[in-house]
């Protein structure tokens, strides 16, 4: 009796965000340690971890944007399309129009801002459901990508290739290979960008008025209005942040793959949503954490790597494992929240 009461106190004393975040981080570490113990090999090398970061930097960025929108009670499923559109536009600009790196970055940001303005306006000021708006946004981006250029192609621009191959070495994390040569561990530029964004957003969400407004609007729109928060503007900004981050994420993605294609980032929006949810963001809004989202992306890609290195057919099993993982996390969320509700009620 006594212990159960204490447990109740612990559960109900913790706020929603921290509770879900803790679960996510614990599970990620258990999973990674499990991978090291049972599969060894690649997972013991730090570079394995950095590779996960390298290939998922864009996902981290878009997932962060998704979290912001979800915390404020919306959703944006256009991010995958925007990523594809950005990479295609930048590729065409660099190769066919002999553009500069700076110009291509401007294009990426421009597409993001344009998406933010249109979607944000429709959702925040015309009160149209965000799902429908961003659904149309996704259709539009995918369609536009093929209109810009139908065939996929690799970018040959020298300046760009140099930037793409830039490696930032992480001191002390290298390994010695079979020949006895020290191989330093590295990350790509995109990872640095992603980490800066994670830190920035963490600060914004945790400590600024704007950040707390996102939570307030997501928690209870009507109350937020009564509390004197400009709900429409807050919603607009959340969509703006998400779209701009999708633009930046698109550029980072482009930097990683070095090509433009209409089939780029297929289903990325679903991965971004899944990462946010695994990271403890609730689709109902008002609950979530950027650090959780980072761990969500890491968990998702770690499990993909585990599946791949276990020798299971990639295309086949990835979908099923991600879905299974999503299912497990959703159930945990659902059960934990129900338990908590009960604990508070009594």
């Amino acid at each position, binding site marked *: 009796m006594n212990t159960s009461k204490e447990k109740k106190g612990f559960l109900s004393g913790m*706020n*929603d965000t921290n509770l879900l975040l803790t679960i996510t981080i614990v599970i990620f570490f258990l999973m990674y340690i499990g991978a090291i113990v049972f599969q060894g090999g690649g997972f013991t090398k730090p570079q394995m971890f950095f590779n996960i970061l390298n290939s998922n930097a864009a996902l981290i960025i878009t997932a962060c944007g998704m979290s912001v929108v979800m915390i404020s009670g919306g959703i944006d499923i256009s991010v995958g399309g925007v990523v594809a559109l950005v990479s295609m536009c930048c590729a065409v600009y660099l190769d066919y129009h002999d553009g500069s790196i700076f110009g291509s970055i401007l294009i990426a940001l421009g597409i993001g801002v344009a998406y933010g303005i249109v979607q944000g306006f429709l959702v925040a000021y015309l009160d149209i459901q965000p799902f429908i708006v961003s659904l149309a946004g996704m259709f539009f981006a995918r369609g536009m990508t093929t209109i810009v250029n139908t065939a996929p192609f690799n970018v040959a621009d020298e300046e760009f290739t140099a930037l793409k191959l830039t490696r930032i070495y992480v001191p002390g994390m290298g390994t010695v290979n079979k020949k006895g040569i020290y191989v330093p561990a590295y990350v790509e530029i995109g990872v640095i960008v992603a980490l800066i964004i994670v830190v920035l957003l963490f600060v914004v969400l945790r400590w600024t008025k704007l950040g707390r407004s996102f939570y307030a609007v997501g928690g209870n729109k009507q109350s*937020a209005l*009564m*509390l*004197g*928060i*400009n709900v429409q503007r807050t919603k607009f900004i959340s969509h703006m942040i998400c779209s701009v981050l999708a633009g930046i994420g698109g550029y980072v993605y482009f930097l990683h793959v070095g090509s433009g294609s209409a089939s780029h980032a297929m289903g990325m929006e679903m991965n971004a949503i899944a990462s946010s949810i695994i990271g403890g963001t609730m689709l109902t809004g008002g609950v979530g954490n950027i650090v959780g989202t980072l761990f969500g992306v890491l968990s998702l890609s770690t499990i993909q790597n585990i599946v791949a290195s276990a020798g299971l057919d990639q295309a086949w099993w990835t979908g099923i494992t991600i879905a299974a993982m999503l299912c497990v996390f959703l159930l945990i969320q659902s059960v934990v929240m129900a338990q908590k509700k009960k604990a*508070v*009620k009594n």
Partner: protein
Amino acid sequence: MEENRVLEMRGINKSFPGVKALQNVDFNLGKGEIHALMGENGAGKSTLIKVLTGVYSKDSGTISLQGKGEVAIHSPQDAQKNGISTVYQEITLCPNLTVAENMFIGRTQGAITNWKKINEDADKLLQNLDIPAKATQQLSNCSIAVQQMVAIARAVDMECEVLILDEPTSSLDEQEVEKLFNLMRNLKERGVGIIFVTHFLDQVYEVCDKITVLRDGQLVGEYEIKDLPRVQLVAKMLGKEMDDLSDIKGESGGYEGGDANEKIFEASALQSDAGIKPFDFYIKKGEVNGFTGLLGSGRSECVRAIFGADRVLGGTVKMHGKEVKINKPLDAMKNGIAYLPEDRKVDGIIGDLSVRDNIILALQVLKGFFKPFSKAQAYAFADEYIKKLNIKTASADTPIKSLSGGNQQKVILARWLLMHPEYLILDEPTRGIDVGTKVDIQKLVLELAKDGMSVTFISSETDEMLRTCSRLVVMRDRKVVGELAGGDLTQNKIMSTIAGESKV
């Protein structure tokens, strides 16, 4: 603008499609004055308040504030900036934020906020106001009453000149109400003008200085409290002289059938997961009884357990002396039990559905999934009860959410009466509705009982229960602590039983 006034509203007009909600209404609020805004539901109180707080924009008229002259208020933010703070009946805070955040969000300056200082300030304020909450606690972890107190603390802390309290007491118990009144008097001394909206007449006469009465969207008048006795106030609100309420019981008399002593419903050691202690209970045919006790004493939980609305954990239930199982609402309905829930908005109405669908719902469910009523039949039922209960609605097809509170309640009542239950449970049927409808409902209860229906009636207003019930079950701390009947049915006796024998 006259001196010593903090607020003047002049010639306010506001109409909604088909309704003139406010017609040329004036309202004045003095410095350091507690001013009651009274009227039946639909009289325009809420609309006036919402115009003042910028939730609605007015069609015409002016709002002037002391020292600022005429102001334009287009949003709740505007109102806040002009020193108008509001506490609403429904808690308008964000449950996912902390107590401190709820108190300060939307009114701090600059982009970066010093949360440490805010937490300290919040703790200080909570302590000053004697509110049992911590600044860093998540709001959803607080009880409803504490949440309401936090909302008030937020409003109080703002440098406000006008404080609007829109039925803030409906979820507070007496001690908490007393605390709130102390707070109001305290603010009054500091020169804050307070607009107080409530349905409790006692409370008006306890704290207010002035009363403004609205009826049908029009101003009836502004009165000093000492110039307006209760009876007159009620008369002004209703627009007619009211018949003497205390007589309604004598008028109708009780049920006189031969089976008046039969126990229709009997429960022993009934317990649910809502946290009440196991209790025994019975009701006879044609009897009106009630559960009384302070808010949170477990009154509602008891009747919810009877109806199977909460998960039943143990105990036996008998109908007509025969044991039955009631695990979910449908079981209770099949046994002829009907339950009008406490929270009309959350548990009662189905907002977007028409009045007709809302009326037939319970009987329809009872009849079965595969046997829908014909349209003609449904209309016949709806029309019958709209007439019988005098429900004011444009048509049977009107969505119930566009009706006034009192009429919504009548629709829910119609829903259960249509089922022709043997045993009707009414949980706070008179809360938040106008005086006229209140009387109608009480009369109806006694009529139903006379015709042989057993009724359990719960109300926060003890005099209502004294008027209708012949037996009262008294509760304290989620436990049944006594039963009163006959000569024991007095205000004093109830109070002393609620408070505990030692206080007699």
